């Protein structure tokens, strides 16, 4: 082939299009940084909208594989969309790089030589939060999360590392619950020392609003995973100030690649800030680049490309990481906090490293050794 074809499946319509857009922006930026060429060949990217529906995502993946005959497929925000699409990619031996979704199956029994992740396994982030709460000496926690797979994974993740007492655990209706006052009242009355929540996207905005308005913010501190990011922060505003979370990437990580990524992103997309979704997509582009360069553009050498990717032979914006046997990163997790930055705007800041070289707990189940 005289060009490198990449399919990019993400959500570009509906309320969560904002995530898809950020992923695409970052991916485009990465291509810019690569001179829009990989190993001298032009890059062609085909973006497909999965509408956040598994069967649509699967169909788009099939289109990319069968009709566009792409060499790589990147993207996937949602676990269920990824799981629905996985078989198509694997059966056709097309490399698939998950730039966000990290269901446990992917790390365990469904791991595949052709599948890599530039994000994490779902449980890793809340595990880091749990660890951090131990470090802070928190004695008890009240857990609140949405009632769907990721929500349950998140709460399970915290519980697996948190050593204090879990005094309560509430699941709310996903995605339609509007009002969290019942749960907040329970949390307040549970006498727990802290509250942990996982509410991605709009629900996170909503939860923080109600948490602050109910006056609980002054009483019980909140710990979060995937609830505050650069997309939700402009809507959460002061409600998010001082609410900690954990992440494998924060915009102010002090490595050179990251500085360049963040600065150029803000230059290219005025008014926007990159997010961890973007960082993962940016890394995905560079991962692809490293593989293609290693085989000198001969995209038929799948084994060689796989071997090269396993080596992580590129500079990630999150700093150095390794791949586990299951192609999930072994990486650091950082504590992030919301502060007012130099420009007086709210932004996320790295406070500390919570865990170093963390590996997911499902890699044993992966048949690849």
């Amino acid at each position, binding site marked *: 082939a005289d060009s490198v074809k990449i399919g990019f499946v993400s959500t570009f*319509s*509906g*309320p969560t*299009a*904002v995530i898809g*857009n950020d992923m695409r922006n970052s991916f485009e930026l990465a291509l810019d940084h690569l001179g829009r060429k990989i190993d001298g060949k032009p890059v062609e990217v085909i973006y497909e909208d999965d509408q956040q529906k598994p069967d649509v995502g699967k169909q788009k993946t099939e289109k990319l594989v069968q009709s566009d005959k792409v060499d790589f497929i990147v993207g996937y925000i949602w676990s269920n969309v990824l799981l629905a699409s996985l078989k198509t990619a694997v059966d056709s031996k097309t490399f698939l790089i998950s730039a966000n979704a990290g269901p446990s199956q992917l790390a365990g029994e469904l791991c595949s030589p052709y599948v890599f992740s530039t994000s994490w396994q779902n449980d890793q982030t809340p595990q880091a939060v749990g660890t951090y709460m131990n470090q802070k000496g928190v004695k008890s926690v009240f857990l609140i999360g949405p*009632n769907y797979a990721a929500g349950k994974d998140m709460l399970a993740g915290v519980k697996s590392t948190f050593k204090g007492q879990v005094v309560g*655990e*509430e*699941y*709310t*209706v*996903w*995605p*339609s619950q*509007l*009002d969290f*006052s*019942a*749960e907040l*009242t*329970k949390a307040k*009355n549970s006498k727990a020392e802290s509250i942990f929540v996982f509410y991605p996207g*709009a*629900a996170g*905005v*909503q939860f923080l*609003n*109600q948490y602050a*308005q*109910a*006056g609980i913010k002054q009483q019980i501190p909140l710990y979060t995973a995937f609830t505050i990011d650069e*997309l939700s922060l*402009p*809507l*959460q*505003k002061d409600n998010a100030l001082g609410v900690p979370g954990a992440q494998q990437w924060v915009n102010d990580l002090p490595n050179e690649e990251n500085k360049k990524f963040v600065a150029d992103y803000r230059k290219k997309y005025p008014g926007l800030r990159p997010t961890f979704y973007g960082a993962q997509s940016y890394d995905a582009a560079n991962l692809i680049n490293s593989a293609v360069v290693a085989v000198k553009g001969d995209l038929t050498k799948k084994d060689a490309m796989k071997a090269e990717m396993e080596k992580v032979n590129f500079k990630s914006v999150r700093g150095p990481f390794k791949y586990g046997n299951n192609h999930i990163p072994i990486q650091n997790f950082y504590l992030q906090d919301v502060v007012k930055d130099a420009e007086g705007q709210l932004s996320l800041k790295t406070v500390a490293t919570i865990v170093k070289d963390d590996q997911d707990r499902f890699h044993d189940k992966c048949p690849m050794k």
Partner: protein
Amino acid sequence: MYLVVEQLLNGLQFGLLLFLLAAGLTLVFGIMDFVNLAHGSLYMMGAYFAATFVAWTGSFVLGALMALGATLLLGIVLEYVALRHLYGRDHLDQVLATFGLILFFNDAVRLIWGPAGLALPLPAWLTVPVQIIPGVYYPAYRLMIIVVALAVAAMLYLVVMRTRIGMLIRAGASNREMIGALGINIKLLFTLVFGLGAALAGLAGLMQAPILTVQIGMGENILILAFVIIVIGGIGSIRGAFMAAIFVGIIDTMGRAFLPDLLRKVLSGAAASTAAPALSSMLIYLLMAIILVLRPEGLFPAAKR
């Protein structure tokens, strides 16, 4: 005990929140008999308008008023251009047409305001918790929602059930041809009522924006809830919608608050922890199904057509 009272209060205020949502729909669907799926879109537009105008003017009240006017106007335009041709038609035609409007509005909003959503912060005077009885604080803004919802309920009831206009709307909904033959300009009347329904949707949107979110698609799940309320209450009955909203609000809140503990007492730990969330997720639907099986025309059936 204290906890129960507080949860009851939560339930009550959630119920009133739901009524605010359902109010405009009661008017347009319950009384005018027009299935307007785009009600959720008007709700969304209300919130977006409010967020925009509040940011422009810097005043919450002024921005909210402008947003109300804007949704009223939008509703009237929508009715005038398209929807008025669908009154006599099958409900399902209305479903398809207004479904199209949902698609349109979602993408229009994304085009105009971007996919990220907007923030509608509260003015400081509405953020302070108010002491309602000694020792019990309540968010000021939630009190305001309660007041507005009650006012809307009263206004709707008076207008629809106690005035000539209300009679004409109800008459027009059951037999447009005949009301016209009695010398009433039902088209104009319906346009205005539809506009009012839109404004109520907008009102719900802008009132809820500060505690919920301003997001694309924010109206869709809420729309279902509003339909649930109206159906449980009995289509066409404002009193029914009001009671149903409070009923659902309380049951849902109490269910979420106490069901898990209750189940834990009955079932084993593992079974309870999977059953409880599933059950409380279904609660509203379960409630509706039970009510409709027992009372196929809702709790307060309006007179049969």
